[in-house]
């Protein structure tokens, strides 16, 4: 990312920062908005059909919770994903926006419909009592909201699908010319949309079951009704999302499939793929145990089962998003751009001409490597190429990754970062001297616990010392 300034996120690192916002967004947008709108529409419809005042009131209470979550946290973390990627990987979001501008624009228009109808549905629910014509109108507001929120997910899923399986979207590389339709109808769009749709509904049902438990403390009849309703929806969705999930997985590039088990646990445990199986079986049983017992014995099942079900679902969702992000590595847009913002086709030129030379935000005195500025130049290289996935001391700390090596072996190792031993890392990009500078810097931080500015910039560059 030689075109942009450098932003450091100490200890947590960029991936964590991004994941925090993104996972929060997924929990809430999929549950409270997409899935939530669908199941609440369903229960409002049943309440109208059976003239069931209690179910109507319960649905409103759940909607109240979903409303607060969706507007205050869901919508803002959604914009947040964008703001985060702006500062973490501007080259990637810049490219995605140029390819998907109109889809995003349409999505935004639908997002308007979604927001307006959510506000309208929620704010007018109370003034439209059961049995009045206003109620039927209120139901239509909910239906519009549900359709709109599903539609926004459909578009965003196309973009996510594109990042993993772009298909034949580039008509030419130099100058880059996208085929916009091919990008939209990329191979994993439809399967991943089906997958997300059904688990969103299942996840929303799980949330609704927990909330129903809380809102029906004094009315076990109502509780039974709610658990049967949402429980049926949840259990019916499971085979559907499994089916779509298998189809989705089938679309992954082979290299991504190879990384699947490693993504599911950590590299340290890669020798034990069975741990990943235990993890997933464990989480799934938490969901199933909670759902089945609440469904079968709604009056007797304690709250803790609902909580277990909720945590199990969150674990599975988090695990899915983690694996999806991991197996796309080393790319951010498959075959087009590496995770650190370097376009694949630019690598030969950068290797020949130098990476730092083109770094707009690196002071000119560090753009060519000299014995004096070597460490500082190496630091800039580390920050621009590795910091996306590594931190110095915190999560995936580079310092512990190079323990037991010396400058020479680091130099050799970083010449083969993208080798089949670590296919999830992009290659180091730059000239031979730059690679030496990076090795020197990494060796320096391996040996020295604290970096001192005096060491990094020996005699040169008073400009930097501010």
């Amino acid at each position, binding site marked *: 990312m*030689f075109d*942009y*300034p450098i*932003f450091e996120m100490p200890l947590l690192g960029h991936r964590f*920062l991004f994941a925090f*916002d993104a996972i929060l967004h997924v929990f809430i947008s999929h549950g409270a908005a997409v899935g939530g709108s669908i199941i609440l529409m369903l229960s409002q419809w049943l309440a109208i059909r059976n003239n069931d005042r209690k179910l109507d009131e319960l649905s409103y209470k759940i909607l109240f919770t979903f409303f*607060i979550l969706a*507007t*205050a946290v869901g*919508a*803002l*973390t959604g*914009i*947040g994903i964008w*703001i*985060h990627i*702006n*500062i973490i990987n501007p*080259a990637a979001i*810049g*490219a995605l*926006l*140029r*390819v998907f*501008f109109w889809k995003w624009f349409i999505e*935004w228009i639908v*997002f308007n419909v979604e*927001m307006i109808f959510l*506000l309208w549905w929620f704010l007018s629910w109370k003034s439209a009592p059961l049995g009045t014509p206003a109620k039927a109108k209120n139901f239509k507001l909910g239906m519009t909201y549900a359709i709109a929120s599903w539609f926004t997910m459909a578009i965003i899923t196309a973009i996510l699908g594109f990042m993993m399986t772009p298909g034949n979207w580039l008509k030419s590389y*130099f*100058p*880059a010319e996208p085929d*916009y339709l091919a990008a939209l109808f990329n191979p994993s769009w439809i399967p991943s949309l089906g997958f997300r749709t059904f688990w969103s509904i299942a996840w929303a049902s799980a949330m609704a079951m927990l909330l129903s438990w809380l809102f029906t403390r004094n009315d076990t009849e109502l509780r039974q009704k709610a658990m049967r309703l949402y429980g049926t929806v949840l259990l019916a969705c499971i085979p559907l999302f499994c089916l779509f999930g298998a189809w989705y997985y089938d679309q992954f590039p082979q290299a991504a499939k*190879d990384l699947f*088990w490693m993504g599911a646990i950590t590299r340290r445990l*890669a*020798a034990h*793929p069975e741990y990943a199986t235990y993890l997933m079986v464990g989480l799934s049983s938490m969901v199933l145990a909670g759902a089945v017992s609440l469904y079968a014995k709604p009056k007797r099942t304690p709250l803790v089962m609902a909580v277990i079900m909720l945590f199990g679902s969150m674990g599975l969702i988090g695990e899915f998003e983690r694996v999806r992000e991991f197996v796309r590595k080393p790319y951010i847009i498959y075959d087009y751009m590496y995770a650190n913002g370097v376009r694949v*086709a*630019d690598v*030969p*030129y950068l290797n020949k*001409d130098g990476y730092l030379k*083109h770094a*707009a*935000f690196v002071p000119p005195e560090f753009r060519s490597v000299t014995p004096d500025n070597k460490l500082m130049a190496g630091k800039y290289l580390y920050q621009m190429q590795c910091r996306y996935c590594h931190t110095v001391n915190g999560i995936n700390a580079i310092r512990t990754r*190079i*323990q*037991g*090596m010396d400058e020479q072996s680091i130099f*050799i*190792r970083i010449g*083969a970062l993208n*080798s*089949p*031993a*670590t*296919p999830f890392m992009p290659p180091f990009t730059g000239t031979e001297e730059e690679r030496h500078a990076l090795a020197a810097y990494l060796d320096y931080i391996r040996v020295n616990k604290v970096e001192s500015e005096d060491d990094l910039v020996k005699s040169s560059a008073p400009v*930097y010392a*501010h």
Partner: protein
Amino acid sequence: MKFNIIPGDIPLPLPTGGLEFMEPVFHALLVVSWVIHILFINVLLGASFASVYFNKRGVNEKNPVFDKVAYLLTTPVTISENMGALWGVAPLLLVSILITPLFYSASIMNSPHWLHIIYGNIVAFLLSYLYKYTWHTLHARKSLHILIGTIAVAMFFTLPLAFMSTVQLAMTPSTWTYHTHFWDILLRSDTFFRLVHFYLASFAVTGVFMLVYGMYKRRSDDPEIVEAGKVLTRTGKSWFLVPTVINLFIGPLVLFSFPDYGIEAFFNHGFHWLIVLTVLVVVYAGYQLLKDFFNDDLPASKVWSVVAVMFIAVVSMATLRHGMRMGLISPVLAASKAKTEAFQKESLLAFEAAQKAQSEAPVVTQPAGMALAEKHGCLACHNAEVKVVGPAYKDVAQKHYSATQIVQLVHQPKPENWPGYMPMPPMPQVPPADIAQIADWINSLK
């Protein structure tokens, strides 16, 4: 004008579909959507402040009408916080394609503080819901209730700090250095004057909003709401007039705190006539309200004429602001585009050369085991002769492992065999048959 830093552009075409006229359309959409976003934010700040203010006044003066006014104001707060966030997306989208390198660079320089517009917003949002939905529950505990409201308002008022400093930085690339950071920009006079102008405008816009809202409330059948409507109308007038008059003085300070070349371009393109228009229109609106200053039953025709006239003022302000922005950044955008095109031209040559070299590379014959070691990435860490990350294979050969043992050791390494080395990562994906061949090669090294 000389710029120290020219960021690169995104090497993909603008999504204009090949239509020339789309670019100006994008600019127009940017101006319009941005104005709508800002108006919502103005009302959010003003109305949330007003709600807490009247809540407190209701307690102090024991006047239920003020409490009513305060409660009525929570509805526009909810709507404008949601719609404000929503209408922030369109400008973000357009800015990201029209002035990509400048906007992204500025937001990175301002990070992580820039993220405050997300996390700070979420906290403020939740607190403002808490304030609204505990109105009746906390009726007996007003000081707690007012405290919650005050914290929410204070949080909302911090958001423009992050926002304005980023926008201002994106607009002034001539001020960029290699270590510009958030606090440098926030404490700059241009950012400061713009912020003052913005906060004052928020009260003025909320004043106009109150005129309209009050007018509707005055039509209610409920006498208490009619009273509240009158309070809103009365407040609206002074909230509009006082900040607007101050802003007539702050405006020039904002204008002249921009870099000289921007001001020059601004006048050369005739944008100063829009300033004249804005001032005339604002003075007219002020005059209309002053004439009816003591009339709480402001007629609808007057309210709507003020709204219409102020709409012209706002659009005119937004346009001249866009003019200033483009005047300041067009030279950098052009340089950025040229730089990227030159880069791509060179990159194409190197790309072709690399492809040619690859297809012409001589086929080297090497032992099958070595080729497999290369293919599975063993050679990233091992060398036949010397220690790299892992031990030299020559030294491994000294241990006289069988092929099966080596398969085991690759799938589940035993770091204790090689103290002082980092642990070798397990590589279960490598097929045993391949490892057996690699093992033969390793053992052939003596």
